[in-house]
């Protein structure tokens, strides 16, 4: 148990430091931090509507975080989660619109289409890395832009006639849940949370319990030893990217099938893919850590919306707090040093 506890200490201290420095910034800018954070907490769990909205915000963060964390665990940096998310979104919506099927087939099909599109998008950098040793970061960054503009083109010219968004998906492909809506005062909370939780279990299971996970992690830690042990390094690099991309594609599918019900032309990135990097980092790249980090991120983002309404504090302050938390997580060495000092002092 103490093992888990020590793993939690440094992210926890990072969060606290982030909040404290955020409070100082609020003070300096002339706002009341107590009221500010109070309204933020209200915006996260103040009433059932806010809880529902918070959960909805958390869903894509969990999945994007899983995508980044999975690749990290196997020694790869999938910075292309954003692009994989965008193509996953569009693919899921396309299936949602184009087919007329019973719900039991249509919904899973649309979800799988999102996963498959993300996986395909991630296969490209994986393949190039395995075959030609091209660094996955470069390829996947470029593919983010490709994804953005290709999907925009498809929405405007193929799926619609010069419109800015697609028509709505069929009800049989929708993740919307009248049940969740009824208990959360008509928030947009949807079944995606179940999908996300299943994916958390899948990631944990693959990495910790299967032969494939054993190979993926081994290749991530030490390619030479893996090759010596008879594992195929190239196969595992590709597989890792594909699984990572599938999680990313699902994150997009959740947005397309749950929150929005359509795909729209985007002026820029959603940012969720990049936030996934922070979620993974904060969650120490473990499945359960990602859930906790996504709770925090999604919570902060959802709560931020309430801050200007209740107290007039700009929601950008929350962005600053989030940035500070990431900063403090990244400087975990520094935090460990402080913790060590603190321990010594107590002793």
């Amino acid at each position, binding site marked *: 148990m103490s093992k888990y506890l020590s793993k939690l200490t440094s992210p926890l201290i990072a969060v606290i430091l982030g909040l404290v420095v955020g409070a100082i910034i609020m003070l300096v800018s002339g706002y009341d931090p107590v009221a500010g954070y109070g309204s933020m907490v209200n915006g996260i769990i103040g009433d059932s509507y806010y809880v529902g909205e918070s959960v909805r915000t958390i869903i894509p963060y969990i999945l994007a975080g899983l995508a980044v964390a999975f690749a990290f665990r196997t020694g790869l940096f999938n910075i292309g989660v954003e692009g994989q998310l965008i193509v996953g979104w569009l693919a899921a919506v396309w299936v949602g619109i184009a087919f007329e099927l019973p719900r039991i087939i249509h919904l899973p099909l649309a979800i799988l289409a999102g996963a498959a599109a993300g996986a395909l998008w991630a296969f490209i950098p994986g393949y190039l890395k395995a075959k030609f040793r091209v660094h996955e970061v470069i390829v996947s960054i470029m593919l983010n832009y490709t994804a953005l503009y290709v999907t925009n083109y498809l929405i405007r010219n193929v799926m619609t006639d010069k419109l800015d968004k697609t028509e709505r998906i069929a009800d049989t492909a929708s993740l919307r849940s009248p049940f969740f809506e009824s208990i959360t005062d008509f928030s947009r909370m949807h079944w995606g949370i179940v999908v996300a939780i299943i994916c958390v279990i899948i990631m944990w299971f693959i990495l910790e319990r299967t032969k494939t996970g054993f190979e993926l992690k*081994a290749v991530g830690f030490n390619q030479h030893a893996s090759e010596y042990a008879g594992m195929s390094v190239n196969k595992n690099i590709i597989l890792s990217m594909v699984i990572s991309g599938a999680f990313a594609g699902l994150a997009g599918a959740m947005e397309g099938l749950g929150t929005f019900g359509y795909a729209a032309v985007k002026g820029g990135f959603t940012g969720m893919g990049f936030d996934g990097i922070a979620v993974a980092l904060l969650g120490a790249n473990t499945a359960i850590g990602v859930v906790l980090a996504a709770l925090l991120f999604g919570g902060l983002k959802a709560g931020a919306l309430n801050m200007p309404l209740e107290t007039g504090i700009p929601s950008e302050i929350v962005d600053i707090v989030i940035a500070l938390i990431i900063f403090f997580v990244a400087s975990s060495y520094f935090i460990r040093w402080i913790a060590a000092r603190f321990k010594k002092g107590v002793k």
Partner: protein
Amino acid sequence: MEYVIEMLNIRKEFPGIIANDNVTLQVKKGEIHALLGENGAGKSTLMNVLFGLYQPEQGEIRVNGEPVKITSPNIANDLGIGMVHQHFMLVDPFTVTENIILGKEPSKAGKIDLKEASEEVRKLSEQYQLRVDPYAKIADISIGMQQRVEILKTLYRGAEILIFDEPTAVLTPQEIKELIFIMKALIKEGKSIILITHKLKEIMEVCDRVTVIRKGQGIGTVNVSETNPNELASLMVGREVLFKTEKTAAAPSDVVLEVRELEVKDPRGVSAVRNLDLTVRAGEIVGIAGVDGNGQSELIEALAGLRKTTAGSIKLNGKEISNLKPRKITEAGVGHIPEDRHKHGLVLDYSIGENIVLQTYYQQPFSKAGILNSKKIFEKARSLIKSYDVRTPSEYTPARALSGGNQQKAIIGREVDRNPDLLIAAQPTRGLDVGAIEFIHKRLIEQRDAGKAVLLISFELEEIMNVSDKIAVIYEGEIVAIVDPKETTEQELGLLMAGSKRTEAGGKQHV
């Protein structure tokens, strides 16, 4: 009596272990003082305490009789303590001079005066007979030369006491001789040396006194002139140690490995192995003797399937295995104790248990239908840890946390346990102490006696002479001679390894 360094009753704890307990080390001015101990005995910890990297919980350090607190390597430097690390801390694309002045650049108005610095390096090099070219790039000079640059670095910073951390581990026999010469020159110039080692021969040859640590405890200090290797070994290990590996005569039978006219290219496309013939039979140990860089690594990698061969054949039990995938070769019955245990042998971040099934994890009972059975995996690990005497807190401990000797025992356990027909042991005892070496040699001979073929590659002539039933000398990628260890001498082998072919009757034999 005047001591330059005194470390009195040092105690250093880490969570869960006491690395040093009541260790006293007193170094006289102008002596070479050996610090002897097994792997993991606490030698490095003690030196890191002296060098300011660790703070001791108890004890006192005195330099020239004055009590001091060494809280950082910079303070150690200021006190005239310099460390020649085992793994060199050099910047490859920089020149010798640039490396030496790094961090202490002499500058005039912000401009580094390289010419003057080079001149100073040249003078120092001359004074201590190091023969280092101040303008050479690190990447272009030999390991032995790089070590001298490390020595110069400490001298340039005004070191009076030099700590050598297992300096001979990376050197060829010729380079070791030169290093010993350099150490004597340093003493003549009034420096004092602490030599961390577990090689008894070196201690007998160059040291004045020796302090022994065993399992973190200071055992005592003896004068080298009043002791002998046997006594030192038993002080270090805590029991009698056999130096001559005991074995019966070999009973070779069927051919297991047959290599014919093999050619392997190195990454630059140069033939590292060419026209190489080699036969290893069941029930014999064939030792490959040679100076580092004569194609040994490429040969092993080709045998293990890690490197493509460009010509020739490798047959295992009559079946061609050249250019098969490593897993196919493993499954065909090859065990491989790799040369570099950190690079190839272990996934250091995996637990020792996971490393024990590194090649067999996909087979029953360790996994079934793609799902790992960790109960079975760690059961296996426990039994191997026990039978191969791997000293680890538990089977869940990361491999990284184990000492080199115990990592190696785990690898050997893993490879031998798969019961391969051919066991390739590449430098199996590199960096290990006498206790572990004895253990490993016994296991190799056990394999031979069980009717397996063993191929031993080592740069240590003593090991080759001791363990092998037949010695194949490799020179420039070719086997240039096959000799019987009972009928040859280190001198003869040395000559053969240096490329002078045998002139007496018998010449090159074909096996």
